[in-house]
């Protein structure tokens, strides 16, 4: 039973009460996966990621330092592992490496690579103090980026853990010659290039390019007046979605550095954002205990689900939605083909205001009648066909 429901879920969320929630948007249902008798705040989920590219297992990092594995096929937690002390701080990043290794990063800055069998980290490196987030590059699995409060963006290559492959430089001093404060809250790797986008607690979005000789940000965009807490990249690669502590989510354009639009609806601070890997859809979750899914094209709210605890992280599965959209895309293609044939067959267009049937005979009859303004009629015809 649990296995069936876990296979349906397309969105996975971790909450502050330690419950892993799965939501199936197509069926509009939410499921809780947890041991109800053993709920405790210690198990607050802080980091969530896919354990493998096939997306059949999830890794959850909790406040008490354990990393649990959840299998979506079986619908249950398969293992738990102690990966650090709670005194070091909460998990700020979790990533999975090929060969069933896990990379974890905690707030005090210690980044560790754990192998499957041993309980000691295989590699350990120190990424500074107050790390807020660690992310793995989707293209080069051994590259990770870390950043935090007064801790500039550093890109590490796990095969050479002694020093970072790239350290960002702080912005130039401001007009009073004072050092600019620096607080990296979240980052993401832009897919087709080496660049990294970060969002800061001082409401700036920076783009860094390790390939270029300058270590300062290549692009800087400001949005709003509140710290930006979450960031996600939609599949196009030219824009970025950011959310701040006031619940404002905006889509920013990276080519020009301007705000394209805002997604409305959130009432509380945004904790996590995730764009779908193929569809123009973004899921957001936050402190107001709702999961919202917006469409990126028209910025409308598609789904809103009330999940009773504050949500910390969100993950989108790319497979279930694919099944649905394949069906829809197929039917749309069929419709377009019909329209093309019809247009080619017809020479003249005219009124057919309220007839909704689209048989060939009627079209021929209509063609024989008189012509009025073509454009208006074409529009009406199109409406008739789409009906």
């Amino acid at each position, binding site marked *: 039973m649990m296995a069936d429901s876990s296979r349906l879920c397309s969105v996975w969320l971790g909450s*502050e*009460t330690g*419950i892993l929630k799965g939501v199936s948007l197509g069926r509009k249902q939410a499921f*809780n996966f947890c041991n*109800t008798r053993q*709920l*405790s*705040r210690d198990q607050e989920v802080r980091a969530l990621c896919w354990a493998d590219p096939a997306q059949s297992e999830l890794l959850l990092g909790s406040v008490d330092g354990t990393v649990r594995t959840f299998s979506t096929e079986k619908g249950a937690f398969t293992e738990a592992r102690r990966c650090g002390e709670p005194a070091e701080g909460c998990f700020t990043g979790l990533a999975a490496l090929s060969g069933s290794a896990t990379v974890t990063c905690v707030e005090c800055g210690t980044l560790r690579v754990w192998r499957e069998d041993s309980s000691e980290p295989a590699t350990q490196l120190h990424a500074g103090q107050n790390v807020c987030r660690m992310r793995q590059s989707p293209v080069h699995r051994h590259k990770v980026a870390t950043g935090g409060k007064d801790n500039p963006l550093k890109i590490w290559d796990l095969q050479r853990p002694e020093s970072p492959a790239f350290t960002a430089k702080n912005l130039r001093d401001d007009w009073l010659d004072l050092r600019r404060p620096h607080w990296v809250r979240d980052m993401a790797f832009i897919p087709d290039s080496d660049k990294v986008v970060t969002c800061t*607690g001082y409401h700036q979005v920076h783009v860094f390019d390790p390939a270029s000789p300058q270590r300062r940000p290549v692009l800087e965009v400001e949005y709003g007046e*509140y*710290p930006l*807490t979450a960031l996600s990249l939609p599949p196009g690669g030219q824009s970025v979605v950011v959310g701040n*502590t*006031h*619940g404002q989510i905006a889509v920013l354009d990276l080519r020009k550095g301007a705000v394209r639009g805002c997604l*409305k*609806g959130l*009432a*509380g*601070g945004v904790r996590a954002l995730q764009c779908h890997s193929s569809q123009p859809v973004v899921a957001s979750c936050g*402190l*107001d*205990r709702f999961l919202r899914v917006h469409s990126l094209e028209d910025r409308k709210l598609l789904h809103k689900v*009330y999940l*009773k*605890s*504050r949500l910390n992280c969100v993950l989108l599965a790319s497979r279930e939605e694919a099944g649905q959209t394949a069906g829809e895309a197929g039917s749309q293609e069929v419709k377009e083909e019909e329209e093309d044939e019809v247009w080619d067959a017809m020479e003249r267009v005219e009124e057919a205001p309220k007839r909704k049937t689209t048989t060939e005979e009627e079209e021929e009859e209509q063609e024989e009648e008189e012509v009025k303004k073509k454009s208006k009629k074409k529009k009406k015809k199109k409406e008739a066909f789409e009906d």
Partner: protein
Amino acid sequence: MDITEVPVSEDSKGKKKKNKKPKMKSKAGNGEAEKKQQEVVVVENMEKSEPAFPPSFSVSEIKNKQRRHFMFMKLKQEKRKQKMQLKKKKKKEREALGDKAPPKEVPKTIENQRVYDETVVDPEDEEVAFDEGTDEFSAYFNGLTNPKVLITTSDRPRGRTVRFCEQLATVIPNAHVYYRRGLALKRVIPQCIARDFTYLIVINEDRKVPNGMVLCHLPDGPTAHFKVSSVRLRKEMKRRGKDPTEHSPEVILNNFTTRLGHSIGRLFAALFPQDPQFVGRQVATFHNQRDFIFFRFHRYIFKNEKRVGIQELGPRFTLKLRSLQKGTFDSKFGEYEWVLKRHEMDACRRKFQL
């Protein structure tokens, strides 16, 4: 004369001719007195109302303000007349039927028509119960801490605000009023925590009148920011009783149904010490209606089993929640759990958040 021309033009499309009429009149009657023009207008309007209007016509399309107003008044009177007729008819039918009449319908109010809110707390929900049981107020609700409240104002308070703070301090037991003297709140908070305060209330003042309140639960608890309105101090209240005594009042929290409402309700409840043996017949009520929280302070006495007498003492004020922040007061870098966004949330009259 104009009057004779008018009926001819009326029969055809009414809209355009009406616009033309003032022009015709002004040509003819530039030298005439205004009264005559108005009479003409009135006569024209009376003649106009009898023939049927074209079906797509509405009163708002008349460009002349005076005429439009007149037509609108007529429309309203018509509607009212019809409504009264309907009512009379229904009443007659009701009396005619006598006992077999159907029961009276419940009138629609905004509270009745409230949009269904999915965040309304279900008492049996385990997850919400766990969430509430382990949130920042758990120490108070488990009886481990006693409330100790610090009341202060924004800088340089004027008369009303000072008196309001003093009266609040009599209402809330174990409350201390301190002058602000330009101190930064972020520095005040660690000092309060060191001295075991559990609450910090800051009354914000604007133009000699209190208009905002920041309520901060201290160890690391949520901070609520309210808009305060309708403050009535003790001497402005009619038929009030004597001053409140030192006993701790009971607390009544009305109508906090949603999850956010529950959080705010707990925030208010933790201001007062928990004592199931009620001593001193005083009660503080926080009543939530339509997202406004009304605070009243009464003294009650049971006259017999069924009747109670109450006397209002103490200040009364109204609060409206503007934001709820997760940590202690940090308006720039804190994370907000709920923020009032007027254009999104106040758009629907039947949707409420608390």
